[in-house]
Each structure stands twice: as C-alpha cells, then as structure tokens.
C-alpha cells in the first residue's frame, strides 16, 4: 500500500494520530504552556470529526483528574501537556498509575521555571520518572505521531494497565513542519483493538476504586506495578514490530542502534537530538572514526538488560541529558546507564555524562564532535565523570 506524505506541523500530526485512536474523553488546559495538539483536537471535535467529549478544564491538575474519573468509567482517554503543566499534575500521575488506569498523554518536553523559559529540554518528563508511567521518547514527528496508537495498545494490555507518556521535544518536534504520513483510520482500526476494560465504575456491578491500603497490603500494589512494567518491556518491542508490519515504519522498540556493531565510542540519547547525532556519526565515519549511537526509546520501563547487551563491544559510552539532577551533577540517563552496569562484568566501558540543550539551547554537530573528542581522552587516562557540554564561559 502506498502512503501519501503531507507536510504538517508536528502538533497536527500528533492530534491526527490521537483522532484515529478514537478516545472517548479528552481534557486539557491551555497555558503553562500548551501546544497546538489540543487546539487541533478541539477543532476536530468542533467539526464533528471526533465522537468524544472534549473538556476545557480549569487546570492541568483537573485535566489529569478528569481523565482518572473517565478512565475508571471505562473511557479511552487522552491529554497533552508540557513543563509546568506536567509538574502540576505530579500528585495525580502517581494516582493514575496506582489505580492502573491506561491514560495516554503526549508530553511536549519543555524546560521548567525558574527562570521561566518555554523552550525545549526534558527536565519535565524526567522529573516524573518515578510516577509509574511508561515513558517513550520520540526522535521525529512521524515517530511522535506513531507512538500514540502504540502506547494505547501497550497501556491497555490487560497484563499491563499502566498510563503512558509519549514524549516529544518541544518546538523542535511540536512546532516544526515535516513531511509525514498521517495515520490511516482503517489501519489503526485494525491495529488498535477497542478498549473494553474488565474493571469499570458501573452501577450494575459496583466496585470500589482507590481504597485505603495499610502496611499489610500497600507494598504489593507497588510490586504489581513493577511487574506490569516488566510485561511492558516485552510488549513495547512486540508492539513496535506489530506496528511496522501494519504501517511499514519502525523506530526500535526499547532501543535502536545506529552504526553500533563495531562502534568503540557509543553515544546514548533520547529524543530529537538523535537526528543530529546520526548526522555527526555519518560525518565521522567517513573519516574512519568508529562511532555509533544507541537511541533510548523507552526510559520507563528502563531496558537495563538490552542496554548491557547493546554496549558489549563499546570502549567508551557517552550519555546526553537534557536534564540535570541538581546536586548530583548528572542527568538521569547517565545515572541510570551507569547503575545498570555496576553489578555486571559484561560491560566494562566507562560512562561519560554530558548535560546540554537546557532551556532550548541548540545542540549543533560541533558540540557533539567536541564531546566525542573529550571521550577519546579516556584512552590517555583523562576521564571526565559528567559535565555541562555547552556552557557559555562569559556567564558561567
């Protein structure tokens, strides 16, 4: 089957992907700051192209709270948010996951205040790491859109039942116009089964949601969430393959490698910077440098085994983080990649962390080359633990 490409804004491509997934309830709040995704969805609803309730709520906190109620009532639900809005949702994110409600949300990654800044980094979703949500990171607009039906399929799996975030970089992906294939309704109907949950709020079969659990039972609720994440590790891979069989597009499941086989220096990263890294690798490969990429698509669940396997032949690992744990002088990917290697003898490569791209600072090829050159110093015994890669000397 031939697919027709169109040039649309990233937000529109995602909104269209949401539409073909046929959610029953969408709720969203405009500011802090929102994107065109929800504007496009409200237009679809206004034009009668979607059979759903579109709720204009009074805060991001109520946006997610309304979806908790709607999901418990058996609806397929969607919202989109970013930075401050996601931070405001924090408390309810734990709640949605603890109640095992498969809400899907696009997180358009943007920096957190202060200082106030509306541009891209990934501090917002990384800061929600432990809320029990699946987190996938998209490389380009097409992947951001395609993630939507994939995540509904994963989240709504009866052995998983966890909410999921599709993370896409703000502006770089949300506001850019790229050629994409809009998801076909007919293919999506075949790919994504209807949502028919076993546990719903129904007067004919009363159930209690959100009970009080004391120390004798609370732990097992967490344990079961963790088990479900373990199932998701497998399903993310399977669903990516099912998707490629149906639509002919594949971006990796948990991870994706580029020029990885013989790479001595492996760069690990998440999100839209992947494209720039690939270009850098193409350039350096021509010069005979054995550089490769390990794209991390799934940050939660974290694919520790798969990462160790993928890094088996690496001599040095570089991690890129558009976030920082202030006080640790590291980004989350760096910390987690190092942690997953510690009790393991298969991978002995050192990990060097670079923090960059904060608050929308551009990441050009030259910055990536600079990091690679620093990583080469390891051979000479000069080792950098973790540092900011793109500091302005005049302000630092």
């Amino acid at each position, binding site marked *: 089957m031939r697919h027709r490409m169109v040039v649309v804004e990233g937000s529109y491509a995602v909104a269209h992907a949401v539409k073909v997934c046929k959610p*029953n*309830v969408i*709720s969203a709040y405009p500011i802090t700051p929102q994107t065109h995704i929800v504007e496009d969805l409200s237009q679809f609803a206004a034009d009668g192209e979607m*059979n*759903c*309730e579109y*709720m*204009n*709520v*009074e*805060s991001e*906190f*109520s946006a997610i*709270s*309304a*979806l*908790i*109620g*709607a*999901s*418990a*009532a*058996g*609806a397929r*639900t969607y919202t989109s948010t970013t930075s401050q809005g996601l931070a405001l949702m924090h*408390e*309810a994110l734990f*709640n949605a996951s603890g*109640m095992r409600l498969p809400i899907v949300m696009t997180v358009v990654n943007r920096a957190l205040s202060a200082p106030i800044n509306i541009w891209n980094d990934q501090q917002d979703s990384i800061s929600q790491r432990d809320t029990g949500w699946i987190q996938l990171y998209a490389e380009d607009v097409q992947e951001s859109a395609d993630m939507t039906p994939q995540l509904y399929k994963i989240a709504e799996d009866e052995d998983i039942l966890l909410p999921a975030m599709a993370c896409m970089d703000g502006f770089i992906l949300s506001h850019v116009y790229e050629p994409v294939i809009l998801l076909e309704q007919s293919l999506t109907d075949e790919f994504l089964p209807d949502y028919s949950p076993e546990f719903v*709020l*129904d*007067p004919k*079969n*009363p*159930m*209690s*949601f*959100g*009970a*009080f*659990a*004391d120390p004798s*039972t609370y732990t097992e609720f967490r344990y079961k969430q963790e088990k479900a994440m373990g199932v998701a590790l497998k399903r993310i891979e399977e669903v990516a393959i099912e998707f490629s069989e149906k639509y002919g597009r594949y971006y990796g499941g948990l991870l994706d490698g580029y020029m990885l086989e013989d790479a001595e220096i492996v760069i690990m990263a998440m999100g839209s910077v992947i494209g720039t890294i690939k270009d850098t690798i193409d350039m350096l490969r021509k010069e005979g440098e054995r550089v490769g990429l390990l794209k991390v698509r799934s940050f939660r669940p974290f694919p520790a085994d798969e990462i160790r396997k993928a890094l088996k032949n690496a001599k040095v690992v570089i991690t890129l983080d558009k976030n920082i744990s202030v006080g640790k002088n590291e980004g989350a990917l760096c910390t987690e990649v190092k942690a997953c290697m510690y009790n393991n003898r298969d991978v002995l490569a050192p990990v060097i962390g670079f923090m960059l791209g904060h608050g929308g600072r551009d990441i050009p090829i030259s910055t990536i080359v600079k990091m690679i050159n620093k990583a080469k110093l390891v051979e000479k015994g000069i080792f950098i633990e973790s540092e900011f890669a793109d500091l302005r000397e005049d302000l630092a």
Partner: protein
Amino acid sequence: MSLLKPGHRGCAGCCDALAGKFVLDAVGEDCIVVSPTGCLEVFTTPYPESAWGVPWIHSLFENAAAVASGVEAALKAMGKMNNTKIIAIGGDGATMDIGLQAISGAFERGHDFTYICVDNEAYMNTGIQRSSGTPMYASTTTSPAGKASFGNPLNKKNMPAIIAAHGSPYVATASVAYAPDMIRKVKKAAAIKGPTYVHVHAPCCTGWKFEGSKTIEVGRLAVETALWPLYEMEKGEVTGVRKIKNRKPVEEYLKAQGRFKHLFTMEGGAEEIKKIQATADWNVKHFGLE
C-alpha cells in the same frame, strides 16, 4: 439494608457515616460516587473491604469534582448516562479549601452531577485542624484557644453562596440531624439536570468534643439557634427556608461542645459569645427564619 454497609470503621455517632447513608438512601443504586480523601473515604474502604454497595472512586484530596466531571463526560461519550446519578461527597476541607478550584471548574462547565459537602467544620481525618469551614472561636489543633486567643479568629466561609454564584440550578443546606429534610434535598438535587450542591452540617463527636450519642442533639441545636440555617436556592434565589419556632440562644449550642468551652471560662468570653449571637441574628434576618 442501606447501600452504605455496616462494618465500616466510623466512630460511634459518626456524622459522616450518617451523611453517607442518607445520601445513598436518597439516590439509590443507580449512581456512581466520587469521594475525595477524608474520614468517609478512609473508614469505608480498608482494602480489601469496602462498605460501598454502589460504584465508588477515590482519587485525591483536591480533585473529587474534576474526577466526577470526568466520570460524567465518559458516560456521556459512551452513551451510558441513562439515569445514572453522579454524586461527589466531600468534607469541608476537600470542598471549601483544597478542592475549591476543581469544584468551581466543574460547576462552571455545567456537568450533570451533585456535589455534597459533609461539613464537620475542621480536618477531622488528620487530627482536627482548622479549615475555612471552622466557625469563629472553635478551638482546633491549629487554631487552639490559649491565653492570648479565643480560638479560630475567622468567620466560616459562605460556600453555598459561592456555588450559587456559579449559576447552579439548585443549592441547599441540610443537616444530618434532620434526616427526612436532607434526604428530600439530596433527591431533589440529584434529579435536577446540571451541577447541584447540598451543604450538610455534620457534628463530629470526636472533633467537637461531645458524646457520640449526642450527634443529632448537637446538630439540632445548630439549627434551633439559627447558626446553621436550612434553606434552598434555585438559580441563585432563596426559594425555601426552614422556619424556627422558639429560637434558642447560641450559648445552648456552644455549651454542648468541648471546642467552645473556653468561651465560658476565659475572661471576656461572654463578650465574644455576643459576636457569635450576632451571626445567628444576621442569619435570622437574612433568611427570614422566624
């Protein structure tokens, strides 16, 4: 048997348990109940048990109205609304303080649901801390009476007026001490389309410090002294009040509770009681209670 089953962990004489029972008596089986965090939520659902004979959901402290509006939107979107009533039951803290924004949003959006505030005038579930529902001069654990204080220095927030200002088609006050009146109002609220509100006065024996056998007695004194006027508002206008015959002085209500006892022992207490009496007198005049 009541749809709020026995065996829950409510205190003997618990006002919340009475309120929950009366609400379910009024609306029947075809409903979905949303509870914010609070006593009612905790004592009815110690996992794996539940006292709720109807579908019930608790999410967080401040979001019951948003959750209820999501439940309503879901039923509408899926064509399952039929006659199902969506009922939120929250305490004074969840309603008047931390949940106020979500309530305002849900009422403004006009969802078809009924919000019931069970007002026991402080954060009882967490240890009797002051809320904006706490009346003037009540001693709580965060507004204690002391040598330099008569207790909570502020007046109770007028929540029914706030809801009425949202254009709600039906707002009523009720009391657990007047069960038939409360049940009638909840029934009426649930039957009316759109967002409706019933604010229920609920004496808490533990927090107000009186014997558990006196919940109804104390609740009646609040109404008989005009400190808790019972009225109904439709589209913002008062359309019905419960008249008081032989109004009692506020001292009778205050004396029945430990939270006000300092007013009778502290120097200057009698003068302060006059301020409380003035509130009751204002209620009589404003609502035409006599």
